[in-house]
């Protein structure tokens, strides 16, 4: 079983920047064994400002192993009805720390500690409906 993730960044900001194209296979920490657990693919609809937990580490049915090689993918897919507004976003955080804002259509792939306090949070800019899709990969404790 394998989980792979590829990224391609293309830009005309600098003529000499040839772009980035990289792939990774998600493995367990410190070895080449494939990562073995996932939350599954989820959608979360938010319709009000205020931070909410996107992932509450202590509530996962399968306890994630702490401080290893977990990753999370999150994407702001707009209002869920095909309307994607690039001018408003959802602020993503870990524990109490703001990581950054996903504007409409933006995505992120980030490592996680999976420590119980390090929940992944989401806080929309506005009360307008916004939908996040996300999936976390982790090692079972």
């Amino acid at each position: 079983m394998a989980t792979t993730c590829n990224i391609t960044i293309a830009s005309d900001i600098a003529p000499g920047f040839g772009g980035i194209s990289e792939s990774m296979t998600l493995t367990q920490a410190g070895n080449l064994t494939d990562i073995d657990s996932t939350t599954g693919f989820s959608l979360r609809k938010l319709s009000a400002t205020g931070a909410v937990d996107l992932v509450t580490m202590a509530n996962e049915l399968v306890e994630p192993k702490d401080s290893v090689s977990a990753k999370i993918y999150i994407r702001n897919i707009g209002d869920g009805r095909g309307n994607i507004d690039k001018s408003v976003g959802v602020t993503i955080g870990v524990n109490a720390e703001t990581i950054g804002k996903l504007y409409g259509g933006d995505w992120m792939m980030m490592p996680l500690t999976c420590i119980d306090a390090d929940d992944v949070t989401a806080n929309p800019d506005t009360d307008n409906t916004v939908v996040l899709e996300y999936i976390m990969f982790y090692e079972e404790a």
Partner: protein
Amino acid sequence: MATTTAAVTLSSDLMSANISVSASSTLMKAGTTADGLDQIEYAVLEIATGDEYDLIANTPTATKASKLYVKNHSIDETYFVAVTQNSQAIGKLYGGDWMFIPADFHDAAADIAITSNGGTNKIEYALIHEGTTLLAT
């Protein structure tokens, strides 16, 4: 307008219904729909084990739409860098791992810091942003 796109494909057979995700985003300045991010800091660094270092030397403008890509090019799967922000542990990038995040830089302490473990890790990063405060000589 400068145009930068970031595309991702994610596939997994961990579930009986295979997961396949594909997405692409044009990276815009904060709050705009017509003006793309237009500045970039791109580097490759070798970081020895030991101290924690700020990955970004300058100070990007806070609370904008900056995006940060980091890859650990170490070929030893036991090597990793621990990534923190404002003393908050984010996670670890083992050899071959990469991350791509929106980076808020909401205050002076909110830089992305990394600590090398196992041995010297070779790190590639690209910060795509819309402004930074350069360090005076």
